[in-house]
């Protein structure tokens, strides 16, 4: 069985003179919740549009469920549910009618799936109310309901929290977690609101100015973003001995440049510094450091901009 749900190979997209995507090699494995991060205009939606067959690459290929031929991709799209950019709904139809239309288009035999999906997104009580009269959040939920109607294996949500209130955001997050956990649904969420993704994603892709800068798992990212004390002393090996012998600390690393990364005792800085100085070591640098997702992203993107 194919491990990858979505793979892009050396993908380029050019609009007139500008490249929206440059050599993007994105990989999403089965069961992942993939957080696709990028600023506005970074190329997130362009990539999603290409992945779902709404747009075509200028160069490179897309592989969905292991299929990359035109026929295979069309068939594979049936296994996807997606909300790209804004929810696509008929304003003069009710929530039920919008779902009924999509049910007919997709050839879903079970009419009961409509009620189930409406309940899942909390729109079961909208009755005959036309969706033109829905709030932004309700429209967003309806868009998600359309995406979920066919019980897709792969769910693509482009900026899904747009228009949702804080409660709605929490509910959506829980819903995505539930679908991923219970139905093993692979999810791709694009967003520029990083805190949203941090609580959800199991893997991240960071895109900037059309280039996929990095793909990193949540575990790797947490490792990279872990808070630590950065200590630089005149004798690193003695420093390490002091930490081990005097403070009984094992959770530290000595880096090649001699810097010690201490991952514990973040609330007990004085005790650490006292132990070091007591052993006649000269402290050259002592600070608490580490990133959150936002910081990590800013550094990564900033680094590219400065190149």
């Amino acid at each position: 069985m194919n491990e990858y749900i979505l793979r892009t190979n050396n993908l380029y997209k050019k609009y007139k003179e500008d490249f929206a995507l440059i050599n993007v090699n994105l990989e999403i494995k089965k069961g992942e919740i993939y957080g696709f991060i990028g600023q506005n205009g970074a190329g997130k939606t362009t990539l999603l549009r290409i992945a779902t067959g709404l747009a075509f690459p200028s160069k490179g290929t897309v592989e969905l469920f292991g299929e990359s031929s035109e026929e295979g991709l069309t068939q594979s799209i049936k296994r996807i549910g997606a909300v790209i950019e804004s929810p696509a709904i008929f304003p003069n139809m009710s929530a039920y009618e919008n779902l009924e239309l999509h049910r007919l288009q997709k050839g879903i035999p079970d009419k009961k799936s409509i009620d189930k999906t409406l309940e899942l997104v909390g729109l079961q009580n909208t009755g005959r109310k036309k969706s033109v009269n829905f709030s932004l959040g309700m429209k967003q939920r309806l868009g998600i309901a359309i995406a979920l109607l066919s019980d897709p294996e792969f769910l693509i949500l482009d900026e899904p929290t747009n228009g949702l209130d804080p409660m709605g955001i929490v509910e959506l997050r829980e819903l995505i977690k539930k679908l991923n956990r219970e139905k093993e649904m692979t999810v791709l969420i694009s967003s520029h609101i990083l805190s949203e993704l941090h609580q959800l994603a199991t893997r991240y892709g960071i895109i900037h100015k059309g280039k996929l800068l990095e793909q990193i798992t949540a575990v790797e990212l947490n490792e990279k973003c872990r808070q630590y004390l950065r200590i630089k002393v005149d004798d690193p090996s003695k420093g390490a001995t002091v930490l081990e012998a005097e403070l009984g600390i094992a959770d530290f690393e000595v880096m090649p440049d001699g810097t010690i990364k201490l991952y514990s005792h973040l609330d007990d800085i004085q005790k650490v510094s006292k132990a070091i100085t007591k052993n006649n070591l000269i402290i050259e640098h002592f600070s608490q450091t580490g990133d959150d997702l936002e910081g990590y992203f800013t550094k990564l993107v900033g680094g590219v901009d400065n190149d």
Partner: protein
Amino acid sequence: MINLIKAELFKLKRNNTFWVLMGVVTVFFALANYLVIIDWWQMHNTGFYNIGLKEYNAMDMVKLPLIFNLIISTLGGFFINIDYTTGTIKNQILSGNKRSHIYLAKLIVFSLGAVITAVILPLITVIIETILLGRSEIYTGTTVMYLLRAFSLYTLIIIAYSSIIMLIASLTKESGKTIIITIIMTIILFVIEKTLVLKYEVVRRIYENSIFYQIYQAFNPSITSNEIGTNILISLGTFIIMSYCGSRIFKKQEIK
């Protein structure tokens, strides 16, 4: 494909413009036919008049490109283009159906809507009015045959014209642009009919092999079998060429 047609029918039934258009067409033709039947509006030398159906004279308007274009382009603008303006065209692509099937299903249902509004409704209106106003004696074997033949050919022409409108609507993606472009197109056509066709042999030949000339032929009481064949061929040819071109364009179109 069947699913897609069902979905398009579902949309057509819920399309407000379609219902408004049906109301307007019914009222317009009911009034026009009534004025003709009571002899308030008199016309001579129409195809209907010459075959003994003078009560149908108001139906001569259906031959005018400006009239049938206004009906079909309005429907096209608001039935086809709404998919682009609401973004629901994205859901159709994401349904995993082939783009050519999506286009064809849309065209079939749009053509059906066009035939209902531009052919069936005006025809039913005049049939009911002539019967209600005591003119049922006009329906003889000859006139019924004429009506059947003329409106069958006209239906094919309307289907062919729908494929042109569908192509334009798919290119413009906006209802306003679709309607304006097709109105301009009919004005240009009128100018060509009145000037270039009379002056240049090539233009005349092209025009005579287009559906716009064949509309007049469809209502010609003395049309020959050969001319009927040509009429059908031109309608079918137009439909096939326009559908193929539209489908190819739609296949390459990027959806925003």
